[in-house]
C-alpha cells in the first residue's frame, strides 16, 4: 500500500496539562504524555499492539466538542491537551461503571480470584466505584471451557480487542475476532466455534493480553493460580525448541509445583510463547520420573526389548486385531493410554541400586570394554536438550576418558547436512542473522520448514513481517499454515529442492539480477555454479519439482530484485540424502544476490532443539572439538591435549549417530553411554536400531523417564529435568541464555553434569568442577566464539555470540559483513545436480511418506506426552492424507489405516488434510504405538550423514475392524 510515511525525524511541540512537551512527529498523545510522566489510564491499549481506541478510557480534551482517544490520536503542533479535567475523570468513571455492569462479582471474577490483576477492577478502585449496581445488569453471555488450557467468560469481556490483536498481530494465528454487532458483540473463535474445537493453537497470547477475567489460564493438575506476588518467580528459558523463548515460571513453593508460566521480554522472542512453552512444563512432575539408579536383573539377560511394543510385536500384522481399539491404542496388558513405555511391563526387569553401585558398575564395564576393544569400542550420545556445560563435559569425558571421537547427538538427525554445507560454503554452521531480522527483509524464503509447528514463535515474526510489507515465499511440499501466510507458495514435489533452486538461480542469472560486485569480491566458483544451473531452465525445474515455470520465474524476479532477502529453512531441506546439496543451493542463492552480511539478509537454518546450537558449539560431534575445531587436525588435537591435560586424544574423526548404530550391529561399538537420547524412536529404521541396541555389550542410559532405548540398558541412571538445573543454552539465533533451577529433583535423581563428573572420576580423570558457572568459564577459554561471555554478563535476556562487549551490547545480529569464516574469507559456491531420493514410489509402495513434528509434541514424546495440556490437545498418532487419496481408500477422518514400508508396518488414525499434496502423506514421529521410524529408510546424506526422514515409499490401506 502506498502510504506516505510520516517524517520521523521531525518533532512537534504541544501542551499537555499546561506543560510544554516535545514529541516525535506521528507519536500519540498517550505516548507523549507517558514520556512526560503523565499517566493516562487505558484498558484497550497496550504498547505491544497498534492502538484501536475503543475503550475510551484514555480520552483527553483537545479543545474539540468530543474528546479524543489519546492512545490513537497523533500529537499536533500547538495542540492544547487536558488529560484529567473533572469532566474527563467523571467520564472515565462512568465508562468504568458501564463496563462493570455486566461483570462477574469481584470474588468470583476469574482473573481477580486467580492472578488478582484485573485491570478493570483496578480502575474501579481508582474511581472509588463499588461493584456494578449503578446500571441495569445483563449477564448470561456464557462461558466456554472447551479448551484444555484456557477458560472463556464472555460476561467478563469488555471487547478491548487486545486478544484479537495478540492473536493476529502478534502471533499471526488469526483465530479470534469480534462476532455480532452492537451490544450483542462478543469475541469469537473462527466461525463462533467453541475455543477447543476451533483452529486455536493454545499459545495463550490472548490470556497474556486480556485485562479482565474473560480469558484466563485453567489451573493444571489442580495447582491453583495465585497472584504473582504470592508465588516465586523464576526467570528462565523454554526447554523445547531452538527459538529459546524467555519465560518466567511462577512456582508455588508450598506445593513444590509450578502454578503458571508467562513469556518474558527478551530481544528475540519478545515475551511470546507457544503452547509447549506456556502449558507444557508439567512433565517434570510426572509420577513416572526415574528416582533411583536401576540395574538390569540377571534373569533379564540376554538383552533385548522388554515391552511388547518395543519388541515390535504389535507391529506384526497377525497381532494387530487383538485388543486394539479404534483409537489405535492397545488395550493389551493394560498399557496406559498415551502410548508411553509401560512401566509395569519393564520395571520388573530392573532392580534399584545405590548411586555408588550403579556408577561403579558403569565405570568398570566401560573401562573393560575400552581395554578389550580399544577406543573404537566406546561411543557416547549426548543430548541437545542438555545445557552447554553438560554437553561440554560429556564430550570431554568421552574424548579424554575413552580417547575416542565417537561422540555425537541428535544434531545428526537434524541439521548435520546444513552445517556441513555452511562450513564448506561460509566457514560457519551458525545462522548468519537472527529470526527477528526478518522484519528488515524485503523478501523472506521459508523452505522445508513447518515453522508454525516447529518454531512457532519464530514463525510469528515471519507472519508479522509479512503484515508489515515483507514478501514471504514459502517452498514446501506440505501446504501447512505458513502457506496461508505466504505471498507466493511453491508446493514442490518432495526431494526436488535442488532442481527448484537451480531453476530459480538459472532465471536470476539469465535476468542478470545477480550482484556482480559481491560475487567478484566475496565469492569463489561462480562460473561452475552458473555452468551447472544453465541446465535447469524453469521448464526443466518445473518438470522435476512440479512448481510451474512461471512461478519459478516470479520467485527469481522477486528474490533477484529484493534489496534484502533472507532464507529460513528446516528439516525439509536437511533430512534428505541430498540434504547437503539442498543447503548448498540456498547458500548459493543468497551469495549470488549479495544477500549475506547485511540487515534483513542471510541464512538461517532454524535449529531444532533448545540447545542444538550450543551442543554443537561445545563439540558434541565426532568431527569437531569445541568451536568447530577439526578433530582430524593434528594442531587442534595438540591444542586440546594441552588444554585438557591429556596425552592421547583420538587423531581421527569419530563415528556419527547413524554410523554408530551400524557399527554396533557389526560388533565395532560395544559399549555406549547415552545421555538423554532415545534413538529407538528418533532414528530411522527402528527394526535395525532394535538389533543394534540389543547387540551392545553394555549400555548405560541416563534419562528422566524410562524410554524405549532404556529397555536395552544394563544400567539406567535417573537424571534431572531441565527444570531442576542451572546452565546455559544457545538458541538458533546464537543467543546464549541462562536457565535457572525451578524445582528440586525428585528422589535421588542427580544433576547430569554431576553424574558425568562422578563417572569421570571413577575412570580416573580427577575432575573437580564445583558448579556450571565454573564449567562455563573453562568452556569459554577453549571456544573463541564465546569470548567475553560470562555468567555475570549474560543478563536476563542472554547475549548473542560473537559479542565483543557483552556489558553494553546484545551481540552480533548480522555476521559476515566483511568476510566469511573460510580460510580465504570468501564464500565458496558449490553447484549441485539434482538427484532423486533413494526410495521412489512404486506400484507396491505408491506413496511418499514425510515425517516430522506436530506443534504440541516434542520428538519421542517422553516429555510432551506426559504433559496434561499437550496430551489433551493432541492425544494420538495420525497420518495426514489428501482428501482425494483418502476418498480413494474409503478413509474418513478418524478411520484406522495401515501404513507399510519395506521396513515395517504401523496402524494409526487418518486425518484428512487439505494441506497434503496428492500422493504424499505425513506422519509425526512422536508416537511409539505408531512409530513413524518403523517405516523410514536409513539411507543417509553422504556428507552430513543425516538420514532421509523426509522421503520413503509407503503403502496405505484401510483397516476394517
Amino acid at each position, binding site marked *: *500500500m*502506498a*502510504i*506516505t*510515511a*510520516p517524517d*520521523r525525524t521531525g518533532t512537534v511541540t504541544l501542551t499537555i496539562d499546561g506543560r510544554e512537551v516535545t514529541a516525535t512527529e*506521528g*507519536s500519540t498523545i498517550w505516548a507523549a504524555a507517558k514520556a512526560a510522566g503523565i499517566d493516562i489510564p487505558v484498558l484497550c491499549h497496550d504498547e505491544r499492539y497498534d*492502538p*484501536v*481506541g*475503543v*475503550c*475510551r478510557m484514555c*480520552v483527553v480534551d483537545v479543545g474539540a466538542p*468530543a474528546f479524543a*482517544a489519546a492512545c*490513537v*490520536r*497523533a500529537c499536533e503542533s500547538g495542540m492544547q491537551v487536558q488529560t484529567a479535567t473533572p*469532566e474527563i475523570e*467523571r*467520564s472515565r468513571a*462512568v*465508562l468504568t461503571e*458501564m*463496563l462493570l*455492569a455486566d461483570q462477574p462479582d469481584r470474588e468470583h471474577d476469574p482473573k481477580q480470584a486467580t492472578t488478582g490483576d484485573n485491570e478493570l477492577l483496578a480502575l474501579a478502585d481508582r474511581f472509588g466505584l463499588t461493584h456494578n449496581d449503578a*446500571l*441495569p445488569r*445483563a449477564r448470561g453471555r456464557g462461558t466456554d471451557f472447551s479448551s484444555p488450557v484456557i477458560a472463556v467468560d464472555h460476561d467478563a469481556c469488555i*471487547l478491548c480487542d487486545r486478544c484479537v*490483536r495478540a492473536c493476529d*498481530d502478534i502471533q499471526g494465528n*488469526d*483465530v*479470534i*475476532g*469480534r462476532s*455480532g*454487532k*452492537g*451490544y*450483542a*458483540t462478543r469475541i*469469537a*473463535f*473462527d*466461525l*463462533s466455534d467453541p475455543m477447543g474445537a*476451533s483452529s486455536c493453537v493454545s499459545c495463550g497470547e490472548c490470556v497474556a493480553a486480556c485485562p479482565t477475567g474473560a480469558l484466563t489460564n485453567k489451573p493444571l493438575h489442580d495447582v491453583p493460580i495465585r497472584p504473582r506476588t504470592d508465588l516465586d518467580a523464576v526467570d528462565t528459558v523454554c526447554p523445547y525448541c531452538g527459538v529459546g523463548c524467555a519465560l518466567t515460571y511462577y512456582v508455588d513453593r508450598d506445593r513444590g509445583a509450578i502454578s503458571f508460566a508467562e513469556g518474558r521480554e527478551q530481544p528475540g522472542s519478545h515475551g511470546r510463547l507457544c503452547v509447549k512453552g506456556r502449558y507444557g512444563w508439567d512433565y517434570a512432575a510426572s509420577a513416572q520420573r526415574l528416582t533411583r539408579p536401576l540395574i538390569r536383573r540377571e534373569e533379564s539377560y540376554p538383552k533385548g526389548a522388554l515391552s511388547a511394543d518395543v519388541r515390535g510385536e504389535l507391529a506384526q500384522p497377525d497381532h494387530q486385531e487383538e485388543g486394539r481399539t479404534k483409537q489405535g491404542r492397545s488395550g493389551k496388558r493394560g498399557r496406559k493410554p498415551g502410548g508411553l513405555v509401560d512401566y509395569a511391563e519393564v520395571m520388573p526387569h530392573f532392580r534399584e541400586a545405590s548411586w555408588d553401585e550403579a556408577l561403579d558398575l558403569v565405570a568398570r564395564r566401560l573401562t573393560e570394554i575400552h581395554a578389550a576393544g580399544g577406543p573404537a569400542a566406546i561411543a557416547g550420545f549426548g543430548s541437545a536438550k542438555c545445557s552447554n556445560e553438560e554437553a561440554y563435559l560429556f564430550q570431554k569425558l568421552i574424548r579424554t576418558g575413552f580417547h575416542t571421537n565417537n561422540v555425537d547427538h541428535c544434531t545428526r538427525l537434524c541439521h548435520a547436512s546444513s552445517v556441513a554445507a555452511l562450513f564448506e560454503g561460509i566457514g560457519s554452521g551458525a545462522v548468519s542473522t537472527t529470526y527477528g531480522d526478518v*522484519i528488515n527483509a*524485503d523478501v523472506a524464503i521459508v523452505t522445508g520448514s513447518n515453522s508454525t509447528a516447529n518454531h512457532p514463535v519464530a514463525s510469528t515474526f515471519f507472519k508479522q513481517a509479512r*503484515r*508489515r*510489507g*515483507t514478501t514471504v515465499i514459502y517452498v514446501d511440499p506440505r501446504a501447512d499454515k505458513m502457506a*496461508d501466510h505466504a505471498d507466493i507458495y511453491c508446493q514442490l514435489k518432495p526431494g526436488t529442492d535442488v532442481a527448484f533452486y537451480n531453476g530459480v538461480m538459472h532465471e536470476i542469472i539469465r535476468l542478470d539480477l545477480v550482484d556482480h560486485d559481491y560475487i567478484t569480491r566475496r565469492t569463489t566458483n561462480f562460473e561452475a555454479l552458473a555452468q551447472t544451473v544453465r541446465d535447469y531452465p524453469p521448464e526443466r525445474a518445473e518438470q522435476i519439482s512440479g512448481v510451474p515455470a512461471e512461478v519459478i520465474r516470479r520467485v527469481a524476479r522477486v528474490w533477484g530484485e529484493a534489496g*534484502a532477502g533472507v532464507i529460513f529453512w528446516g528439516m525439509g531441506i536437511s533430512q534428505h540424502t541430498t540434504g547437503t546439496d539442498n543447503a548448498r543451493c540456498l547458500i548459493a542463492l543468497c551469495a549470488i544476490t549479495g544477500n549475506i552480511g547485511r540487515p534483513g539478509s542471510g541464512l538461517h537454518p532454524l535449529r531444532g532443539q533448545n540447545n542444538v546450537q550450543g551442543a554443537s558449539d561445545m563439540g558434541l560431534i565426532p568431527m569437531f572439538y569445541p568451536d568447530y575445531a577439526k578433530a582430524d587436525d593434528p594442531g587442534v588435537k595438540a591444542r586440546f591435549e594441552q588444554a585438557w591435560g591429556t596425552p592421547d586424544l583420538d587423531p581421527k574423526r569419530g563415528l556419527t549417530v547413524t554410523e554408530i548404530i551400524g557399527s554396533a550391529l557389526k560388533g565395532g561399538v560395544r559399549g555406549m553411554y547415552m545421555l538423554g537420547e532415545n534413538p529407538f524412536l528418533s532414528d530411522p529404521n527402528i527394526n535395525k536400531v532394535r538389533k543394534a541396541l540389543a547387540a551392545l555389550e553394555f549400555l548405560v542410559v541416563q534419562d528422566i523417564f524410562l524410554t524405549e532405548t532404556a529397555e536395552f540398558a544394563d544400567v539406567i541412571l535417573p537424571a534431572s529435568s531441565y527444570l531442576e538445573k542451572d546452565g546455559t543454552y544457545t538458541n538458533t539465533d546464537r543467543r546464549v541464555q541462562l536457565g535457572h533451577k525451578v524445582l528440586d529433583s525428585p528422589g535421588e535423581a542427580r544433576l547430569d553434569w554431576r553424574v558425568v563428573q562422578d563417572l569421570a572420576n571413577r575412570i580416573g580423570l580427577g575432575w573437580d568442577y564445583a558448579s556450571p558457572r565454573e564449567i562455563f568459564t573453562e568452556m569459554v577459554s577453549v571456544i573463541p566464539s564465546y569470548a567475553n561471555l560470562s555468567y555475570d554478563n549474560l543478563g536476563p535476556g542472554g547475549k548473542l555470540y560473537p559479542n565483543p562487549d557483552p556489558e553494553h551490547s546484545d551481540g552480533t545480529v548480522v555476521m559476515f559483513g566483511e568476510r566469511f569464516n573460510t580460510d580465504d574469507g570468501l564464500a565458496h559456491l558449490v553447484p549441485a545436480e539434482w538427484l532423486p531420493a533413494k526410495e521412489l514410489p512404486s506400484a507396491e509402495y505408491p506413496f511418499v511418506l514425510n515425517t516430522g513434528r506436530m506443534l504440541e509434541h516434542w520428538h519421542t514424546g517422553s516429555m510432551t506426552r506426559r504433559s496434561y495440556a499437550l496430551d489433551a490437545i493432541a492425544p494420538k498418532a495420525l497420518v495426514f492424507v489428501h482428501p482425494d487419496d483418502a476418498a480413494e481408500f474409503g478413509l474418513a477422518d478418524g478411520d484406522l489405516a495401515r501404513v507399510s514400508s519395506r521396513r515395517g508396518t504401523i496402524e494409526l488414525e487418518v486425518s484428512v488434510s487439505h494441506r497434503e499434496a496428492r500422493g504424499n502423506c505425513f506422519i509425526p514421529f512422536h508416537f511409539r504405538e505408531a512409530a513413524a521410524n518403523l517405516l523410514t529408510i536409513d539411507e543417509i546424506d553422504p556428507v552430513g550423514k543425516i538420514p532421509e526422514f523426509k522421503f520413503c515409499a509407503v503403502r496405505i490401506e484401510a483397516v476394517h475392524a
Partner: protein
Amino acid sequence: MPDLAPRVPGVEARAGKFPGPSLIPALHAITERVGWLPREELVALSREVHRPLYEIEGLISFYPHFRTTPPERVTLRVCHDLSCWLRGAEDRIAEARQRYARDPDIEFTECSCLGRCDTGPSVTVNQTPVTLARADTLIAAARNGSAPDVVAVPSARRWPNDPYASAAEHYGVLRDVLSGALPPGQVTAVLAESGLRGMGGAGFPTGRKWELVAAQVATPKYAICNADESEPGTFKDRQILADQPHLVLEGMLLGMLATGAEEGWVFIRHEYGPEEAVVRREIEHLRETGLLGPAVPTGRGNGAGRRLSVEVFTSPGGYILGEESALIECIEGHRGEPRNKPPFPGVYGLHGQPTLMNSVETLAHVPVIARRGAAWWKEQGAGESAGLKFFAVSGHVERPGVYCVPMGTTARQLLDLAGGVLDGRRPGAIQPGGASSNFLGPGQLDVPLDFGSLREAGSMLGSGALVVMAEGTDLLAAATNVLRFFRDESCGKCVPCRVGSTKAHQILADHLAAGGGPDDVDARITELEQVMRRTSICGLGQVALGPVASVLRLTGSPDPD
C-alpha cells in the same frame, strides 16, 4: 525496509490487516447461489483465499444481509422506527406477529428504518419494499416463489436544482470540463463561493472538501457517493436517486475530475433496490455514451483520454455505514466500524488513499451551481440562507414526502406545504433534522430550517428530515424509540455507545413500562448522555441520547446541570 510503527499518524491497528480483496463480494456470491451461507461454503472460501475464518465470521455476523441459516420462503419485515411508529407500526407489527406466528412459510421480523417513511409503516417482502396495502399480494406471490422486479419510477416532478430542460442536455457541465472549456478547478472554486455544504448531516463546506482532496499528493484517489441514508425519517436521497440520477453522477464525475480520482463508488443501501436499478441504468447509459470508460476523451493533453470508472456498491446493511469511515471500512471488506478520526477520508480514506466522499443531495446540487453560478445559488435561499434544500417530511403529517424548498424555509412553512398536521391536529413537537436531531417544541416552528438557525435553536439541520409529532404524542416514548434505533444500529466498537445506549434504553424502557414520565426520569440518563456525547468515536454514539435529553429539557424536567 518494512516499518513497525503505524504508517500514518492516528491510523488504527486494523488498517491493512487483511491483505487482499474484500470478501464481501464472495459472500454475496454464495448467498446468491445458495440462498444463505452454509458452514462448508465458508470453510471452503477461507481455504481458497487463505483468509482466516474469524474474518468471515466478523463480516457475516455484522451485516444483516448475510445469514447462516436457510431463509423461509417469505421474509416479511416491518419497520418499527419513529416515523412508522407514529403511523401505527406497533399495532401492525402485533397483528402481523399474530397472523404469521404459525405460518411455516413466513419469517417475520421487526426491522430498522427502511427509508420509506412517507408510506409507513413500511414493509419489505423478500427484500422488495412495499406498502402495507400491497403486502398481502406480494406475500402470496412470494409463497409461489415469484418475486417482482421493481425499478423505481421517477416522480415526474421538475425539481428546481436541475439545470437541464431535457435529457439531451444532461451532463452539459461534465462535457464542458472534459472538453477543456471549463477548468475543473473552476467548478471547485464556484462551489466554494456558493457556500454549498454537505447535505448528509455534517454540513462540511463542499468546495473546501474538494480542494483538500485535490491538494493531496498521494495517488490513486477515490470518490464515493454516499447513498446510504438510513436514519429514521430520512428518505430524500431516495427520491433524488430515482428522479435525478444524472445529476448525482454528474456531480460525482465533476468531483473526480476536480480532485484527480479515477475510480468512484456509489455506496447504496440495499433497501434501495428499486433506486439502485435506476442508478445502474444511468451508469450503463454513461458507459454507452463514452462518459465512463478506460479512456474518456478529453480536450486536453495528448488525447489519450482519461480513465473514469463508477461502480455501485450495495451495502450489506446497517445504518452505521452511512458514517463515512464505516462506509469505507465496509468497501474495504471489514466490519463497518467507524475509525478514530483524524485522519479524515480526504487524507486517508479508501485503502488508505485520499477519498472524496459526498452525499447524494450534495452531488445533485453541483451541476446547477456550476452552470448557473454561486450568486444564483445563494439567491435561491430564503433570507440569509443560501441555496435549495431537499426535505423528507414524515410522521403525523397529511402529505408525507420529499420537498425541495429554499434553505431557510421555516418548519411551519414546510409543514404547511405538506398539508399540515395529520387529521388537523395541533403540532406537538418536531425533529427537524432526522433521528439524531433534538426535538423542538410547538413554540419553535418558525425557526428557519438552515444550519445556523437550527443550531441556535438547540437542534440541527442534520439529514434534512422533518418528523412531525402531533400534540398528545408521548414524546419520551418517541425519543426512547429513537434511542432504540441507535442502540440497534450501534456497531459495538466503542464502550460508551455499545454499553451506554443499551443501558440507557433499558432504564427508559423500564421507566416507561412502569408508567413513568419525563419528570421522574433517572438522573443517570443525563450523565450517560454527556459521557456518550463526549467520548463516543462517531456521531451515532455522540447523538444517541440527544433526542431523549432534548425531550427532558422540552418537558421541563429538572436537569442536574
